[in-house]
C-alpha cells in the first residue's frame, strides 16, 4: 500500500514530524515549548504545500502562521504572565475517553478515505501560481474575497470593544 517514490518519501518524513510536533504541542508542560513545536508543525504544513506545488500558499503559511501567529503567541506568553517557566497540566479526566475516540476516529477516517476512488487530477497548471491565484481572487472569487474584508472589519471592531477598558 505504501509506495516509496521521489514524491512520497519527503511526504512521509514531513508527516511524521508534523504528527510528532502536534502531539508535543498538546502534551508538553511548558507553554513556550508548546508554541515552538507549533511553529515546527506549521513549517511542516508549508512543506506539504510545496509538495503539492502550491508555493504561494507555502509562503503565506510561513509568513502568517510562523511569522505572525506563533510570534504573537510567544509575545503574549512572555508579556502577560510569568509562565515561561511555569509547568501546566495539559490533560484532564477526559483523556482516556478522548484517546479512545481519537483512535476510532482516525481509523474510520483512514478506512473511509482509502476506500474512496479519488479522481486523480493530472498536474497541468502553470508553473507560476501567483498570477493565477491573484486573478481568481479578483474575478471568480471576488465575492468571498470582499466578504472577508468585512469579516476582518467586524473582527477588528469586536476586538477593540472586547479588549479596551
Amino acid at each position, binding site marked *: 500500500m505504501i509506495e516509496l517514490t521521489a514524491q512520497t518519501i519527503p511526504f512521509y518524513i514531513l508527516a511524521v514530524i508534523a504528527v510528532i510536533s502536534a502531539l508535543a504541542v498538546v502534551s508538553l508542560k511548558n507553554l513556550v515549548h508548546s508554541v515552538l513545536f507549533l511553529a515546527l508543525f506549521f513549517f511542516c504544513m508549508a512543506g506539504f504545500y510545496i509538495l503539492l506545488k502550491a508555493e504561494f500558499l507555502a509562503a503565506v503559511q510561513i509568513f502568517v502562521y510562523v511569522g505572525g501567529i506563533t510570534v504573537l503567541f510567544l509575545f503574549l506568553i512572555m508579556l502577560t504572565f510569568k509562565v515561561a517557566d511555569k509547568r501546566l497540566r495539559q490533560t*484532564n479526566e*477526559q483523556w482516556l*475517553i*478522548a484517546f479512545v*475516540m481519537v483512535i*476510532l*476516529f482516525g481509523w*474510520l477516517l483512514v*478506512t*473511509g478515505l482509502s476506500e474512496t476512488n479519488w479522481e486523480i487530477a493530472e498536474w497541468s497548471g502553470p508553473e507560476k501560481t501567483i498570477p493565477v491565484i491573484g486573478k481568481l481572487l479578483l474575478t471568480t472569487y471576488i465575492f468571498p474575497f470582499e466578504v472577508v474584508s468585512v469579516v476582518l472589519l467586524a473582527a477588528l471592531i469586536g476586538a477593540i470593544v472586547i479588549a479596551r477598558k
Partner: protein
Amino acid sequence: MLNYAWWIPLLPLITFVVIIFLTGKAKNLSSYLSILSTFVSFILSCKLFLYLIAHPETVEMSVEWFRTGRISVELGMLIDPLTGMMLVVVTLVSLLVQIYSRGYMHGDPALSRYYAFLSLFTFSMLGLVVANNFVQIFIGWELVGLCSYTLIGFWYQKPEAAAAGKKAFITTRIGDVGFMIGILLLFSHAQTFNFLQVEEFLHRGILSPGLLTLIAVLIFCGAIGKSAQFPLHVWLPDAMEGPTPVSALIHAATMVAAGVYLVGRLFGLFSGSAQAMLVVAYIGGFTAIFAGTIAVAQNDIKRIVAYSTLSQLGYMVLALGCGGYTAGLFHLMTHAFFKALLFLACGSVIHAIHSQDIWDAGGLFKPMKITAIVFLLGSLSLAGIPPFAGFWSKDEILIAVHNSGHTVLFVASIITVFLTAFYSFRLWFVVFTGKEKEGSHAHESPAVMTIPMIILAILAVVAGLPGSPWMGGWIHGFIHFEGLHEMEAEHGGHGMVMYLSLAMAASGIITAWIAYKARWISYESMAGTFSSAHSLLFHKYWIDELYDLTVIWGTMFTARVSGLFDRYVVDGLVNGTAWVTIAMGRGARTFQTGLVQNYMLIIFIGILGFLLTRLL
C-alpha cells in the same frame, strides 16, 4: 366595487381589539368608539342594501384562508338580498341597543368590557351572516355562543347570571354537536365547504335522499339550539339574567336569529328533503304554541317577552318548514324591530321600578308616556294588528302554512295568534293601566334611552310595508328562493286566513282587556279554578325540572363516577408519567455540566456515533 363590504364586519372586530387592548380604562371613550364603529357599519350596510335593491344579484368575494392538501378553506362574503337585509337589521338593532345602553348601563364599572363584547357579538353575527362557507359560519356561530356566555353572565357576581350564562352556552352546544356532524358529513361527500359549490353538488343529485334528510336534520339541530326551539329552548328564558339591552340584542337581531337565518341560507338543502322540512315545520309549530301557552302564566316582565320570542321564532321556523321562505325571513326582520323595541321598553320599565315582576308595576302610563306608547305599538305589531309590521309578516306565514296543507299546524298557528295577542296585552294592561303602586317614584327614562325606542317604534309600524299590497308585495320579488314561486301566495286571494287571524288577535286583546283591565272576571279565581293547568304553565311544563332529573342528574352521576375513575386511575397514570418525565429531564440535564471540554466531547461522540452507524 363592493369591496367596502369587508368593513361591515371588520369594524366591530377592530373596535373589540382596540377596546380590549387600548381604551379599557377609558369607559366613555370605549362606548363612543363602539357606537361610532357600529354606526359606520350600519351606513355601509345601508349602502350595500340600496345597491342590492338596484341590482338584486348574488355576489361572492373570497380569499383563501388556508389550505391543507386538497382542502381549501376560504374567508369570504356571499352577498345577496338576504344578506343585505340581515346586515341592515343586525347593525341597526346593535347600534340602537348600544346607544340605549349608554343610559341603561350608566355607571357600570365594567362598561368597557360590556362594549367590547357587544362589538365582538356584532362582529360574530355579521361574520356569520356574510359567510360563504360552512367553516366561517360555524366559527361565527361559536363566537356568538361565546359572546352570549360572557354577556348573559355579564354580572357574574350574581350566581344566577353566571349559571344562566353557562346554561345558554352548554345548551346551545348540544345543538352544535349535531350541526358540526352535519357539516362534516356533508363535506365528506361534497368535498367543499363553499355554499354555492355545495348547492351545485346538491343539484347534481348524487346524494341519496336518506342521507340528505339526515344531514339536513343534523344541521337543523344547530338551529334548534341557537333559535331556542323545543326541546333546547330552556336556556332562553334564563338568559334574562343578563342586562336588558343584551336581551334585546340576543333576542331580536343576533343570536336567536342565527338559527332561522341558517335554515334560510341553506334552504336549498332543506327543501331537497320533504321529511326534513316536515321535521322543521313540526318543531317550529310546536314551539310556537307551546311557548305561547307558557307566556300566558308568567309574572316576570322579561320572561313573558322571552317566551313570546320563542313563540315567534317557532313561527319563523314553521314558515320555513312549510316552504314559506319569504314569509319566514320577512318575519325575522319585522320581529327583530318590534321585539328589540319591546325589550328596550321592558328595560325602561325595569329601570323605573327596579323590579321585573309585572305585579309590582301598574299605572305606569302617566309617568312614562313615551315608554307606554312605544310598548303599545310594539305589542300591536306583535299581536298582528294591521297595519303594523307584525301583521303583514305573520299573515304571510299563516298563508304559507295554510297552503302547505298541514291542518294541524294551521290550527296551532291560529291558536297561537290568540295567545300572542292575549299575553302581550295582559302585560300591557297590568303594567301601564290601573292604579299606580304606592311609594312608586317611576319616571320616564332619559332621552338616550327613549330615542332608540322611538326609532324602533317607527320601524315596528312601517317595516311591514314591503309585504303589504300597497307596495305590491315587493318583498316577494326581493327575497325569494328559486323554484319555490308556486308555493308563495298572492296576498289578496287569502282573505279568509287574514280575517281569521284578525279575529283571533282581536279576541285575544279583548279577553286580556276583560280579565285585566275591566276586571269583569277575576284572573285570580280563574287561576284558582284551573289551578293544575295554571301551575303546569307557570312552571313551564316542568321541562327544566324534567331535565334536572334526567339529563343533568344522569350527567352529574356519570361525571361523579368518571371523576372517581379519573382521580384514582387516570391521575395515577398521568402523575406517574409526569414523574417519569421530570426524572428523565433531570437526567438529561446532567449532560450540561458547564464545562466546555465536556461539550466538545459530546459533539465528537455525536459525530463518531453517526460515523459508526454509517460506515459499519
